[in-house]
Structures are given as structure tokens and as C-alpha cells.
């Protein structure tokens, strides 16, 4: 086992097709798009359920139900139905990130101290003010932890895109396997793990920055 693939400068060229930076870029692109689309879908639903308490059963069980969907199967199904392209990957990865975001948005809202919400109401805040000025900021730490675990999961899972002819860091794994180059597989594994750690650190910093100091 060796690191020659990882440390070969030729594989770090910015312009060469399929170089590590290009694969990182496409990998991050899949991850970010899936997280954005997943958040747009899951966050309002989770907040709504958490705020009103209606549909709690769905929110609690969405987590494990979504986790049980095999991403590889979903991706292969989507490519079989839609052909090669970005859409099948985004569908499969978005399905993966929705449950943790939804569940944690719900959990964040439910674990709020109700005395604080009551106090906010008592101060004369309107419902939307209660939501945006009190509930949301206070639910943020829990929501961020769900978002971070979604991000970690999707970084590792986005590698399966390469199994159906798409890009991302999974190319290093699939191609390394196909051409019998373990050094390439190792490079893929390390870059994915480092990417996951870096992303988690960025999100940790973001969390520090957006969560109100009073809640730390």
C-alpha cells in the first residue's frame, strides 16, 4: 500500500481531466447542491412540525426510515429511469440528507424551553417574531448538529455516484478498483476523509458564528 498516487503532482493539476482537484470540485458540488436542496425541503417541514406539534410521528420516524433507503439502489434506479446525468445523483443524495435535517429541525423546536416562548409571547411578540427571534435562534444548535451529521454522511456517500458513471471522488475508488491501482483507491479514501473533516470544521466554525453567544 502506498501513497504514490496521492502525492504525484500530475494528479493535482487543475486543468487535467479527472485530476484530484477537479474530482474534489465535482464532489463538493454534489454535496453542496444536495445539502441546499435538502435544507430547502426539510427545514420548513421540520420547523412547521416542531412549531405546531402536528405530524410529530412523521418527524420522529423520518430519520430512520430515510437512513434505511439504500443510496446505491436509489441511485441505480434513478439512472435506469432518467439516464446519465446530475439529476439522479441529486435525487439520491437529497433523499439521504432530508431525514437528519428534518428530524433535527423538529427536535430543535420541540426541546425549546416553553417558558421562554411564553415570555416572548407575553412581551407582545407576534407569532412570526416568536418564530424568527426566539424559537429559531434557540433551536439552532440542535439543528446545526443534524445538519453537520447530514453533511458528513453525504460526503462519504457521494462516492457512489462514480459507480453509475458520474464524477466525484468516488472515481478514484471505482477506477482504482477497475484498473487494479490500490494507491489510487487509498488516495480516494484519504481525500474523502480529509474533506469530511474539513467540512465539519467549517460547519463548526459557522455554528460558532451564527449561534447566539447566550446559548453556548
Amino acid at each position, binding site marked *: 500500500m502506498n501513497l504514490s498516487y496521492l502525492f504525484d503532482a500530475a494528479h493535482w493539476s487543475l486543468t487535467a481531466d479527472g485530476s484530484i482537484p477537479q474530482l474534489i470540485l465535482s464532489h463538493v458540488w454534489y454535496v453542496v447542491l444536495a445539502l441546499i436542496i435538502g435544507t430547502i425541503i426539510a427545514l420548513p417541514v421540520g420547523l412547521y412540525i416542531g412549531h405546531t406539534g402536528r405530524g410529530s410521528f412523521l418527524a420522529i420516524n423520518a430519520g*430512520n426510515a430515510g437512513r434505511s433507503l*439504500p443510496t*446505491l*439502489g436509489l441511485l441505480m434506479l434513478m439512472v*435506469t429511469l432518467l439516464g446519465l446525468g446530475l439529476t439522479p445523483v441529486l435525487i439520491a443524495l437529497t433523499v439521504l440528507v432530508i431525514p437528519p435535517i428534518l428530524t433535527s429541525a423538529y427536535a430543535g423546536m420541540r426541546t425549546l424551553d416553553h417558558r421562554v416562548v411564553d415570555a416572548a409571547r407575553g412581551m407582545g411578540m407576534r407569532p412570526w417574531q416568536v418564530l424568527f427571534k426566539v424559537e429559531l435562534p434557540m433551536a439552532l444548535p440542535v439543528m446545526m448538529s443534524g445538519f453537520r451529521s447530514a453533511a458528513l454522511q453525504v460526503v*462519504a*456517500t457521494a462516492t*457512489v455516484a462514480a459507480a453509475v458513471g458520474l464524477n466525484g471522488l468516488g472515481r478514484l475508488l471505482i477506477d482504482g*478498483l477497475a484498473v487494479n491501482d490500490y494507491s489510487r483507491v487509498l488516495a480516494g479514501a484519504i481525500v474523502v*476523509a480529509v474533506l469530511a473533516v474539513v467540512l465539519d470544521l467549517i460547519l463548526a466554525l459557522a455554528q460558532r458564528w451564527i449561534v447566539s453567544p447566550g446559548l453556548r
Partner: protein
Amino acid sequence: MSTYLSNNWETILTALRQHVWLALVPVVIGFVLALPIGYLGVRFPWLYHPLVNTCGVLYSIPSLALFVFLPVLLGTKILSPLNIVVALTIYTVALLARTVADGLRSVDALVVQSATAMGYRRLRRLIDVELPVALPVILAGLRVATVSNISLVSVGALIGVGGLGQLFTRGFQLFYTQPIIVGIVLSVALAGICDLAIVGLQRLVTPWTRYQRGAA
């Protein structure tokens, strides 16, 4: 769909059986390993953060890479199901060790102090008091680990050992949706059944959690 099922039920059952085996053996081994490891993270507080971070990094290694590398590390044959079992055991430990530690840390200090005052020694106190009290948290982690293992097994199909994942690759190689759909449905159903089984187990072994809810 019915013709596909009646023509292929034997293949499907074999795949399902392999899937159950590959997913659940690691859950059992991983659970047994995670208990002492998680405990260490509580017994020696300075170990807690390194433990959590190592678990995080381990969990972000793509499963395919782990499946490919384990033969190098273990000297196993490259198609040995053992590679899948060990890889999933690593993920299970990574998930559960943290949960066990968190569960034990969440035990009310007063409870621990009372037990000590009653004359419990460290080990007895751990087994008779702390572990049972932490059990709901630990079992919640076990649900997550079980369900995600069931979904991860299928990635092994990319190297020819993947239980129901083989239905995915077969369907994908023929652009034939039925095997893929059957595989996804069975995989999700299997996860659902195991999840319910753990919930049932939890009700059985932690009856007090129900009384509490009833009393509230």
C-alpha cells in the same frame, strides 16, 4: 413484477439471507466491542474527545474503500464476506462507542452517588445502575447503527459481495428496474423490521421508561 418475483425468488431469497447475515453480525460484534470502548471514554474523561473524533473520522471513510482495503490489512481473500463484516463492524463501533459514552455521561450524577452510597462498587454500579439507566440512549444508537448497516451492505455489490445490492447491480446492468425496486423494498422492510424489534426489546428491558411517560 409478479413474473420477475416468481422467476427469481430463489436468487432474491439467497441475496436476502446474505444481506441479513452481513448486516446483523457486525451489529452484534460492534455492540459488544462498543460497550467497553465507550466506557473507557467515560472512565477516563481525557479520552472522550479523541474517541469521539476518531469515531467521526472512521465513519467518514467511504465503505467501498474499506471493503477494498481490508484484505490488505487482514490478509483475507478479496471476495471474502469477512471484509464486509469487519468494515461494518468498524462503522458500528464508530457509531456506538460514542453513543455508549454519551449514554453513560447522561446518567444523573445523583443516581450514581446514591448507588455509591448504597455500597455499590464501580463494576457492579456500572452493570446494575449506570448501564440500565443509559440503555434508552444506547439502544437508540443501536437502532441507527442497525438501520445504516442494512443500507450499507448493498455497496458491497460493487465488488460482488453485497446481499440485496446484487439485485441493484443486476438491474443496473440491464437497465431493468424490477430487481432494483425489489431490492430497495426488501432492504427498507428488513431495516423496518429490525428497527421495530429493537424498539420492542427496549420496551421489554427498560419498562420504567414507560411508567415515567404514563405518570407524566
